[in-house]
């Protein structure tokens, strides 16, 4: 494969990988479906009778409870939702007075569970319900990690077909024109069902009319980007176990920034890495050429040196030879001279 073609393929793969998360993570402001429903809970009216719990158990066909719903002693313990209880009422002691608070799925406008789910098993329905589809669920339980209200629960005891369980807002009953089970059962009007926009008006009106009875805050109007369940209370919400430090950022916005980096990584890494590879190759090539050059130079240097040495040796040998010849000639001449002198002296002695 040609390198250029390869990079093209990578870029294409990157675009595919990146396109959908970037779009989904885009920080568009979502105000919620305009006519979606919700429920307003008024803690000043709740008497902790647990009728809503009983109704919830009945309409959702949940297993029978060990402790009957008319046993109010259970209110003394802090409870949370479980796979067989979609809603619970807890009692809080605020300066010696009991204050009750109902817990169930808040049906966020931009749900953390839906953002976290990697198979899209949670959908915000136009009725306002956050709908869970057990047919898609793989059972990773990331929704439970993500939910800031600690609502989704799991059927850990089921080995084959465990489901996430949570309040459905009685979506099917709403579609039939009925009230959610808990709202219908409430004897004190602590729960009001209606269009969310209307519920906010009702809540404001109550706070305006009775400023000494309510704290000036509608919990759920803006928490985590807003929820379909809304709460008004006579005491600060943190004193009835509701977190006031969650902020107003919708959950999807917490991850959209990091998700936006994904296309950058997919786009830039191949370029940088191929570049690094090319640089490495080039460095190796240059090093190789330099090495070859150095070797060639060394070889020619060595050769020249060898030639010079050879010549020097030859010259020296030549000189030595000449010297030896000279010496021998000299020696021979000297010997001849001596012989001649000897002969001469012998001749003169004879005379």
């Amino acid at each position, binding site marked *: 494969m040609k390198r250029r073609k390869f990079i093209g393929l990578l870029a294409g793969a990157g675009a595919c990988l990146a396109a959908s998360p970037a779009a989904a993570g885009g920080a568009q402001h979502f105000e919620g479906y305009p006519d979606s429903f919700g429920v307003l809970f008024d803690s000043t009216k709740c008497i902790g009778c647990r009728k809503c719990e009983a109704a919830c158990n009945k309409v959702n066909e949940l297993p029978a409870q060990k402790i009957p719903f008319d046993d109010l002693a259970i209110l003394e313990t802090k409870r949370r939702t479980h796979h067989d209880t979609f809603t619970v009422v807890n009692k809080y002691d605020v300066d010696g007075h009991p204050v009750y608070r109902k817990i169930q799925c808040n049906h966020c406008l931009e749900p953390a569970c839906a953002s976290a789910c990697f198979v*899209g098993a949670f959908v915000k329905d136009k009725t306002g319900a956050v709908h869970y589809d057990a047919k898609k669920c793989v059972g*990773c339980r990331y929704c439970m990690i*993500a939910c800031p209200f600690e609502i989704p629960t799991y059927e*850990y005891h089921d080995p084959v077909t465990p489901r996430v369980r949570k309040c459905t807002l009685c979506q099917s009953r709403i579609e039939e024109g009925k009230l959610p089970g808990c709202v219908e059962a409430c004897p004190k009007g602590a729960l009001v069902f209606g269009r969310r926009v209307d519920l906010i008006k009702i809540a404001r009106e109550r706070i305006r009319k009775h400023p000494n009875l309510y704290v000036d805050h509608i919990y759920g109007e803006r928490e985590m980007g807003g929820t379909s369940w809304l709460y008004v209370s006579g005491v600060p919400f943190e004193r009835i176990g509701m977190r006031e430090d969650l902020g107003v950022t919708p959950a999807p916005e917490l991850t959209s920034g990091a998700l936006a980096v994904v296309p950058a990584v997919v786009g830039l890494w*191949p370029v940088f890495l191929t570049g690094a590879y090319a640089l490495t190759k080039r460095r190796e090539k240059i090093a190789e050429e330099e090495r070859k050059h150095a070797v060639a130079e060394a070889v020619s240097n060595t050769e020249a040196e060898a030639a010079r040495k050879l010549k020097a040796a030859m010259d020296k040998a030549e000189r030595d030879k000449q010297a030896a010849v000279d010496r021998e000639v000299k020696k021979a001449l000297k010997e001849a001279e001596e012989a001649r002198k000897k002969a001469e002296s012998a001749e003169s002695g004879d005379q």
Partner: protein
Amino acid sequence: MSHHTTPTKSFWTPANIITAVILLIGLVLTVKRFTMGIASVSNLSDDNPWGIWIGFDLLCGVALAAGGYTTSAAVYLFGMKQYHSAVRPAITTAFLGYAFVVFALMYDLGRYYRLPYPLTIYPGPTSFLFEVGLCVALYLTVLAIEFSPAVWEALRWKKIRHLVHGLTLILTIFGVILSTLHQSSLGALYLIAPSKLHPLWYSPYLAMFFFVSSIPAGLSMVIFEGGLSHKYLHHKMDETHLAESSGVTLGFAKAASVVLFAYFILKWIGVALGNNWSLLFTGWGAWFLFELIGFVLVPCLMYAVAAREKNEKLAFWASIVTVLGIVLNRLNISLVAFNWQLPLESRYVPAWEEIMITVFIVTLEITVLRFCLHKLPILHEHPEFKGAH
């Protein structure tokens, strides 16, 4: 473990007996998990949906398998050919590491048989878990291909081995991209839960922390496993591996030291960004400093000294401290500092069965790794493929 040094000795050495016992208990618990449900073998609850199977098996498993992409990138992309003999052992451990991460996930997923759903019929691309799943699946495939030449060589299938070898560059680049994405995404999983993770560990930089720390994690695992191989599998290593191993150890020690220091600084930038200075003086702050100084700064300095003084033993110890530090960090984020606001009685402590299943999976992985190192040309070159790189 010693049956190979003395082939006549019985198979039932102490190490093999312990392995067999662990595997047996693991099998029994596996049957229990898949017939009686997650609740029968774990303390997972509605408050604590993720336990050690995610915190250790997944988060630590993936971080500690980072040796694959770091080593192959160093050798094939950045031209550090002197570390070539480290590539195959690193790829082998990475491949087995990821394979067993997926295997361990089967225990944790309620409907494990639907694992392909997010990648096939019901994609949920707004989730960081989707990105983790996609990248891990693709990377496991890449690692399988990168690992396969060891098998082809053992089988003497020269043509396919040659074909795979031709893909090295592409596979390495893919490996780095996919690793960058899923290593960081594992940290980004927690971005959605700022109200549950302690602010000293929660940071918009979580993704970067996880990616950057995966580099020394991978390098340290290569050093650590190299040290162990040297000790226990000396006879399986050929001259090239033996000759290069000290270079690999010291070179990687230097790199790990540099990256650990960068990570140390990044973590402080994280504290500054969240303006969490006052939290440092709480009990959680002490625990945070214990992790950051004891298991990031200390091994960083140990590595620096080891590289400077060419002290392989010190580098080996530094690798152990680094690995423990990565495990501590991942467990802090997923378990210890997660749900920190819950009352003590609602906090998670793993059940013994959960721990035992994790021990079982790790033992199984080590057993398979030992088998591979003994039977395949990983620590030595196959005689018929010598120098064919």
